[in-house]
């Protein structure tokens, strides 16, 4: 049964190579179908793996190289519930994305399909792998595919710029990752996560461990787009094709955080364990900063995709806050939130893609009131906006309430209000945009819409007057996902169980080296009344902020709005679009992170 693990990666890779070789025989429709089939196959395989692994851990050794005398000689896939769930989510999102793009004009077989398949495989492999260098290889596979997909519309200047910024920043991240791997290998002589963890648990926390963690964490936080490593994300997500954005926002952003969690609990957590409160403070601090920064910037955007890109950054900040609490409850809440919110963000990107297809523009100013006729799209858009500001009792609400409970348990009482603020701001940005575009409310925004008009042909074939049904179906699926994760009874318990497994480093090591360990059963408390209050409050605040943005001038709150604009100006100016600035900020971020981590040596 565990043979399925390599197949989940091997089949799409082999399929992609064969697709590339034989594309002349297949044509566009054939390529669409084949890619869809391969993605579906991966999804099914990973789902079976997920069910099979339950609350345990399933190890698969490649090449038949089982550990010899307590030494891990080969590469392993360590399938644990959270990783498998994330991998399954990625595969299913890919199926939806391929469905969405099935008849679009802007993509060429076989290149698009091959790139999408390898993109998916990179993410799946990253989630399942139990070896540090193997994680790096899949990290690179994912990144390289993403560069080509982001810069895909290469006729546009913005796409080239977005692709270049992403490629350079991500490459620097990859090199930092590799440097960290080098240091760890030098220190422990191992590349297998369990082996490293076991070796390090006999050492004390020393300078090599701290620097290696700083380097590896920086690389993963760059991928996750945490402030100050986040500058590449809005440039990149604003220009990528809509189906690619679905995956970028829904899955790739979370990969960095998943990696961070794996690396922490498998390798660094045990050895740095006595100083966990320092690491917790650093991660939660960075998370909250990112959450507020991203959401506040979202409100400043006229370009819809860039708006959603900043919403993504805001939410990744919340995810990091949840993960950074470094408790099982935090991890569980983040897991639930990632799945539900991932669907939500993907849904919003998909809907903006529909707007782009119908009207050829993604500027709120240009689109003002033009989309009045698209009722289904509008309904889904508003639903999406409300859901991501955690409208109870649906998916994002459940995740957020779990995170807030976890924060309270470790005494971080200031976390819930900040999360509420962040999601309210993000929700407001989305709702306000929706009201402007679909309802024609409010005056056209003051911001300069010059660059937001993408002078491209619409992305799809067929009439511009109709939205392709496949796009709407895909959106419907995503909406169901966002709602569903909250109303699925027992999901929170599953997440809690999975989280307990995720954080148990010593049990992980034991299982990898062949010993069986007992099962885990955990339950999670249902959201309490104050969670309903917090999250309901967040939604109301979102609606309130949106209304303020739309009608504020009419109501005499003009001075307040101008004050807000002026306050945000320095933050806006920092996002220059220049790679040199981004790299400077990145270096400073790495230096500061390392410096802060040095505190753990005391």
């Amino acid at each position, binding site marked *: 049964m565990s043979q399925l693990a390599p197949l989940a990666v091997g089949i799409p890779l082999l399929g992609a190579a064969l697709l590339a070789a034989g594309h002349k025989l297949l044509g566009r429709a054939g390529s669409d179908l084949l890619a869809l089939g391969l993605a579906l196959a991966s999804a099914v395989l990973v789902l079976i793996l997920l069910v099979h692994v339950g609350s345990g851990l399933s190890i698969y050794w490649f090449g038949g190289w089982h550990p010899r005398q307590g030494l891990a000689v080969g590469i392993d896939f360590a399938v644990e519930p959270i990783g498998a769930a994330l991998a399954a989510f990625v595969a299913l999102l890919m199926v939806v994305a391929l469905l969405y793009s099935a008849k679009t004009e802007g993509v060429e077989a076989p290149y698009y399909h091959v790139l999408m398949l390898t993109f998916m495989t990179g993410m799946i492999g990253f989630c399942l792998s139990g070896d540090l260098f193997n994680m790096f290889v899949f990290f690179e596979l994912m990144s*390289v595919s993403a560069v080509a997909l982001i810069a895909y519309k*290469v006729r546009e*200047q913005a796409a080239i710029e977005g692709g*270049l910024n992403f*490629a350079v920043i991500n*490459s620097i991240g990859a090199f930092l990752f590799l440097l960290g791997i080098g240091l760890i290998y030098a220190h422990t002589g191992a590349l297998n996560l369990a082996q490293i963890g076991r070796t390090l648990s006999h050492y004390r926390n020393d300078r090599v461990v701290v620097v290696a963690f700083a380097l590896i964490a920086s690389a993963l936080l760059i991928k996750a787009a945490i402030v100050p490593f986040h500058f590449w994300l809005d440039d990149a997500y604003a220009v990528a094709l809509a189906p690619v954005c679905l995956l970028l926002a829904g899955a790739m952003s979370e990969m960095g955080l998943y990696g961070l969690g794996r690396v922490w609990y498998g390798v660094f957590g045990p050895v740095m364990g006595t100083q966990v409160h320092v690491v917790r403070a650093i991660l939660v601090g960075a998370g909250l900063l990112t959450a507020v920064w991203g959401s506040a910037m979202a409100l*400043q955007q006229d370009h819809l995709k860039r708006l959603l890109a900043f919403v993504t950054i805001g939410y990744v900040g919340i995810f990091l806050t949840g993960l950074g609490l470094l408790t099982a409850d935090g991890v569980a809440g983040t897991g639930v939130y990632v799945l539900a919110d991932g669907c939500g963000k993907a849904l919003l990107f998909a809907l903006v893609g529909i707007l782009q297809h119908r009207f050829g523009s993604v500027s709120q100013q240009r689109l003002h009131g033009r989309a009045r006729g698209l009722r289904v799209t509008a309904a889904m858009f508003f639903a999406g906006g409300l859901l991501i500001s955690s409208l109870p009792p649906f998916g994002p609400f459940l995740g957020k309430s779990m995170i807030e409970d976890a924060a309270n348990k470790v005494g971080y009482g200031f976390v819930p209000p900040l999360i509420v603020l962040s999601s309210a701001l993000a929700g407001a940005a989305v709702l306000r945009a929706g009201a402007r575009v679909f309802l024609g409310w409010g005056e056209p925004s003051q911001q*300069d*819409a010059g660059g937001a008009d993408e002078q491209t042909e619409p992305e799809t074939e067929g009439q511009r007057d109709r939205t392709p049904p496949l796009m709407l179906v895909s959106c419907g699926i995503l909406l169901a996902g966002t709602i569903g994760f909250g109303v699925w009874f027992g999901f929170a318990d599953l997440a809690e169980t999975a989280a307990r497994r995720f954080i148990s480093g010593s049990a992980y090591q034991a299982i990898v080296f062949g010993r069986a360990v007992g099962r885990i059963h955990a339950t999670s408390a249902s959201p309490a009344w104050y969670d309903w209050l917090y999250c309901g409050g967040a939604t109301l605040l979102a609606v309130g902020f949106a209304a303020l943005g739309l009608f504020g001038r009419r109501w005499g709150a003009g001075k307040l709005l101008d004050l807000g604009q002026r306050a945000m100006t320095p933050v806006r100016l920092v996002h220059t679009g220049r790679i040199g600035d981004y790299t400077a900020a990145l270096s400073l971020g790495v230096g500061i992170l390392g410096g802060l981590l040095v505190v753990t040596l005391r």
Partner: protein
Amino acid sequence: MSVFPYLVAAWLLGIGLWGVISSRNYLHLIMCLTVLQGSTYVLLLSVGYLSHAKAPIFADITTKSRVTDPIVQALTLTDVVVEATIVAMLLALVIQANKRYGSIDPDEMRRMRD
């Protein structure tokens, strides 16, 4: 001195990062990324070195000889080819940028306004 190779790696890291930050030419920037790659290779290979040891090829030495670490060498060898092709992709993007912007100065890139 025993930490010298690591200093070389650190120097390459610093120069590479500084080059990217201060670059006014995309080709220069990509070459700085190549320098950064070099720092990772230097680190990896230094880590595997063993003094007075031979290469881990047993065609003409006995299996009991003192040899350097093959793991890092394997990691480096696959990485070199891979990173070269990634540079190729970046160069392709720069070619496009040149055709469409008429410039390869990173600071000239017009970005979309908010």
